[in-house]
């Protein structure tokens, strides 16, 4: 089936990182100044998020309605998320967490429009934000508890109170595990979001290919597979919408949990 492999290759190609103005060019990891296809859609998501919130913020009133009400509900949701995982001081992180969540949300959802790409479907964007979160929460932890205090909290207080063997032997083992765990956090954050978004896009693309190929066959089996693929395509679109929201939420929720953990590092 020659058509399938070609179409699949072209789909894969379309989803890879390409220079925006040249679909047939390549982008190597060290090219710093190439305007890529994903960055184009990142800017679209940027503008959409900005316009939505600036318009909504000007529509807020003591008795809210319409878009102002919608934005307020979103901000309230973020505020509750922050306060739940960071306590009262979480309120000052609302702008950061809110930007993260809504930027991710707009990027994910806008990427569902046929012909567009989700900005979070490339490892470059998700890794950058994951590393940013990693640096931020460690900075917060060190700033609050001091360098020594923060790293000391990696070893649970129960182990710290053991005898010398437990304290230094088991303590250092746990410390190494804990450090590894912290370094895995940005990796998993970046991979989870990227893989979900990218795979979702690929699945939609593949079902799309099946719909077209089935129709071309002009046989009962072909039409049946085409019809079933169309049904799956619709279901997958709905699922992708769900995944887009859930992934934005998970990324944000984990970020608040990491910041909360760094703020309250002395409590465990």
């Amino acid at each position, binding site marked *: *089936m020659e058509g*399938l*492999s*070609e179409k*699949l*290759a*072209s789909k*894969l*190609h379309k*989803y*890879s*990182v390409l220079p925006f103005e040249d679909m047939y060019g390549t*982008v*190597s*990891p*060290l*090219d*710093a*100044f*190439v*305007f*890529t296809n*994903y*960055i184009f859609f*990142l800017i679209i998501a*940027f503008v959409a*998020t*900005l316009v939505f*919130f*600036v318009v909504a*913020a000007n529509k*807020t*009133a*003591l008795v*809210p309605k319409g878009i102002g009400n919608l*934005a*307020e509900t979103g*901000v*309230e949701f973020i*505020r509750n998320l922050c306060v739940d995982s960071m306590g009262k001081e979480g*309120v000052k992180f*609302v*702008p950061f967490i*809110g*930007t993260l969540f*809504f*930027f991710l949300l707009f990027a994910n959802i806008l990427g569902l429009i046929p012909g567009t790409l989700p*900005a979070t479907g*490339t*490892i*470059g*964007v998700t*890794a*950058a*934000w994951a590393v*940013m979160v990693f640096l931020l929460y460690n900075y917060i932890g060190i700033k609050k508890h001091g360098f020594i205090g923060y790293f000391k909290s990696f070893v649970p207080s129960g182990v710290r109170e053991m005898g010398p063997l437990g304290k230094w032997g088991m303590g250092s083992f746990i410390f190494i595990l804990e450090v590894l765990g912290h370094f895995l956090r940005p990796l998993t954050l970046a*991979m989870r979001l*990227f893989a979900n978004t*990218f795979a979702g896009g690929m699945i939609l693309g*593949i079902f799309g290919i099946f719909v077209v190929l089935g129709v071309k066959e002009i046989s009962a089996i072909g039409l049946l597979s085409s019809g079933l693929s169309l049904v799956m395509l619709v279901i997958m679109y709905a699922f992708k919408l769900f995944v887009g929201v859930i992934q934005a939420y998970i990324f944000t929720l984990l970020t608040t949990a990491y910041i909360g953990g760094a703020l309250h590092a002395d409590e465990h």
Partner: protein
Amino acid sequence: MLFEEFAYAAEAASDQGASISIIPSLAEIWPSLFAFAVLFLLLKKFAFGPILNMLQKRSDTIRESLEKAEETKLEAERLLEDYKAQLAEARAEAAGLAEQSRKIAESMKDEIVAQANEEAALIIARAREAVEAEKKLAMAELQGSVAALSVSVAGKLIGEKLSEADHAKLIEKYLAEVGSFNDN
């Protein structure tokens, strides 16, 4: 079967040079960080700040309104108690006034009746006195005229045969009889 075909196709596609890069590209790292930073600053200033302020303002307003409503309610209850107390006082006062007026009226009535009785008694007494005086006068007059009449009748009956002394005796006797009448 479809799956096998698909696996073959994927392999063929990969042979054609299609691949997914999982190495982040610098071309995406700095623009996404930059975009995030700019969006963060803009949203903080123009969206989240104002919206958070509005949320705070609203919760303050609602809390204040509730507190005010509670205060107003307490004030209203206090006023109601006041008015009830005042009303009860006014009622008691009115009842007192009515009672007082009734007593005054009662005493005035008694006084008036007593005065009237006194006056009536006085009038009756005066009337009696007047009647008594009239009666005495009439009696005296009657005595005089009876005597004269008797003398003239007796004179006519017995003629001139009575002496002056007899005449006087007879009158006295007669008068005594008439006086005994009068006593009755």
